[in-house]
């Protein structure tokens, strides 16, 4: 009935090859006053060439999960309590710092949210791109420069030769984010982790960046883990969606399942709370009442119970675990139990 492993054989049919497998990951932060359980048992699989969207409110653990995948969170205060992360079959958590450096920037690329602060202001853009290539691909300066220019062209930066010699402050926000993408992709990473890559950008620039990412995926077959809170972006570019809530996976499924037939009241709530351009505006928006729980003392039972309109007796007592709803969809909600009564959202 329950299966946390089912994503293994999802999405792209029989020939889907898992690139990243996360199993029962628990990450905590030791703070004054206790232990913040930021990630509480996350399972996910990203196959080759797949774009997986991770959505959820701030504090739901989506960025912590992503940064733990690359071992970017300093420890202490963070601590991986339990679980495993396998990237192309190798256990990431067992690697030494030196081995991690081989992985980061080489086989795994990351784009951060804020293009204004994630580039080094004292280095030319060219050096920041070539640094990676020289280190990971043993290129000569000359080769790396050539590849850097190619990458800038690829992400749509005009006058790439001149731009290589410039510093980040000479670029606009959208252009800097393109530089970030160029750096992340220079070494042809197998996995690109994009943490809110367009949140700081305007919609017209966002549209340009999303086009770039879609094209890269179809051209280079890169797997992308896209963290965002914008459901529109998820619908636009993702194959699979993972909805996170309070450090857990609340629901996961194909993009079609999540948007047309969500099985978790939280996912339903998220979809109802956003107005759409084609919506009738005389209807009031349906917000999700309340706020997410404090992860120093996560509630027993279902973490969403306190905000859920269908809360039953069992919800506050026992954590439902993930129920399988189809071969690709599962939800952490008691309503999917075969004994549960039918509810219509």
């Amino acid at each position: 009935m329950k299966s946390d492993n089912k994503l293994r054989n999802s999405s792209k049919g029989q020939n889907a090859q898992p690139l990243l497998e996360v199993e029962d990951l628990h990450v905590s932060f030791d703070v004054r006053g206790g232990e913040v359980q930021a990630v509480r048992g996350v399972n996910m699989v990203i196959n080759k060439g797949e774009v997986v969207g991770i959505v959820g409110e701030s504090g739901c653990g989506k960025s912590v999960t992503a940064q733990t995948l690359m071992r970017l969170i300093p420890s202490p205060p963070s601590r991986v309590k339990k679980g495993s992360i396998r990237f192309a079959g190798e256990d990431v958590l067992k690697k030494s710092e030196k081995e991690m450096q081989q992985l980061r920037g080489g086989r795994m690329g990351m784009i951060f949210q804020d293009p204004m602060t994630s580039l080094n202001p004292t280095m030319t853009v060219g050096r920041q791109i070539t640094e990676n290539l020289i280190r990971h691909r043993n290129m000569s300066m000359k080769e790396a420069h050539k590849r850097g220019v190619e990458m800038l062209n690829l992400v749509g930066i005009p006058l790439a030769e001149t731009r290589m010699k410039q510093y980040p402050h000479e670029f606009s926000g959208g252009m800097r984010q393109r530089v970030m993408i160029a750096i992340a992709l220079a070494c042809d990473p197998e996995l690109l982790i994009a943490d809110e890559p367009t949140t700081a950008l305007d919609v017209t620039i966002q549209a340009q960046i999303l086009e770039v990412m879609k094209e890269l995926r179809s051209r280079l077959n890169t797997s992308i883990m896209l963290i965002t809170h914008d459901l529109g972006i998820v619908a636009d570019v993702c194959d699979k969606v993972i909805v996170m809530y309070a450090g857990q996976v609340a629901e996961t499924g194909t993009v079609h399942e999540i948007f047309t037939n969500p099985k978790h009241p939280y996912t339903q709530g998220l979809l109802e709370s956003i107005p759409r351009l084609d919506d009738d505006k005389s209807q009031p928006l349906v917000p999700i009442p309340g706020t997410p729980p404090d992860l120093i003392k996560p509630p027993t039972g279902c973490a969403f119970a306190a905000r859920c309109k269908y809360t039953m007796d069992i919800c506050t007592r026992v954590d439902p675990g993930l129920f399988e709803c189809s071969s690709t969809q599962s939800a952490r909600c008691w309503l999917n139990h075969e004994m549960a009564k039918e509810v219509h959202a």
Partner: protein
Amino acid sequence: MSSSQNKTLIEVNNLSKLFRVGKGRTLKAVNDVSFFIREGETLGMVGESGCGKSTVGRTLLRLYEPSGGEVKFEGKDIYKLSASEMKAIRRDMQMIFQDPYASLNPRLTVNDIIGEALDIHNLAKNRAERKARVAELLQLVGLNAEHANRYPHEFSGGQRQRIGIARALAVNPKFIVCDEPISALDVSIQAQVVNLLKELQRKMGLTYLFIAHDLSMVKYISDRVAVMYLGKLVELAESETLYEEPLHPYTRALLSAVPIPDPDSETQKRRIVIKGDLPSAIDPPSGCPFRTRCPLAKEVCAQEMPPLIEHRPGHYAACHFAGEPLPKQEGIVSAG
């Protein structure tokens, strides 16, 4: 909510705001903008960062002195008022800020944050009355009266934004400039705040200027929407009309750039991706500011700035080729 019979509350005529940026250069943040806001309506204002929408909001309240033009509030030009007259009129015009973390003084309790507005305008006779009024305001925005003794850091983002709203409401204003009031909040919380703003408008007959870059939220909350680009007002219409039949090529590109949360419509939708970045407002292009990125641009666009013309009743656009179909050309995926 509002009907076209409602009288005009705010009239903005040829408003300009320049900022000196050193070396004798000026930045035209707002460039000759005219519009009006009717009593009880919500005028949405959208545009990309740097287009001048926040500057319009602040200049309307005379938080900035204008470089040119006039703003009439109930028929009075507010830029001609003396300091004491201005203070009196500020009771009618309030503002809700974008960042709920930065716009509340961390050293004051909620009681003092909201009470300060009452003190300035002598709206409470004594401590007991002040406390009662603060409690009433907190309940109005969906918070607890007991929250009054807490400090801002004890609240979540959504709750802080409610405190900001309570502060704006403390003086019983007629008009509120909401400058991106929800963009710092989570999706599930945004709807709570927007519903609250709508409910307060109904109850108290408020007029809003709602500045935002989230186009779907602006459509939802606004009666009419104004689109700005590089300091210029490029289009203004009833919100339904603007979203269904946009005339200005910039508005059309802006609307088509919004990802729609529906995977099926998305695959069918063909998007207009406009190339390039926003030009600098220090050295804006000649003629129409959008011409450098516009698929319709011709020679005339570089020579003269198209005036804001009423193409249909209530639907204004500033474009020489307003409403013309966008050409299919390289790099432009034309809209279906």
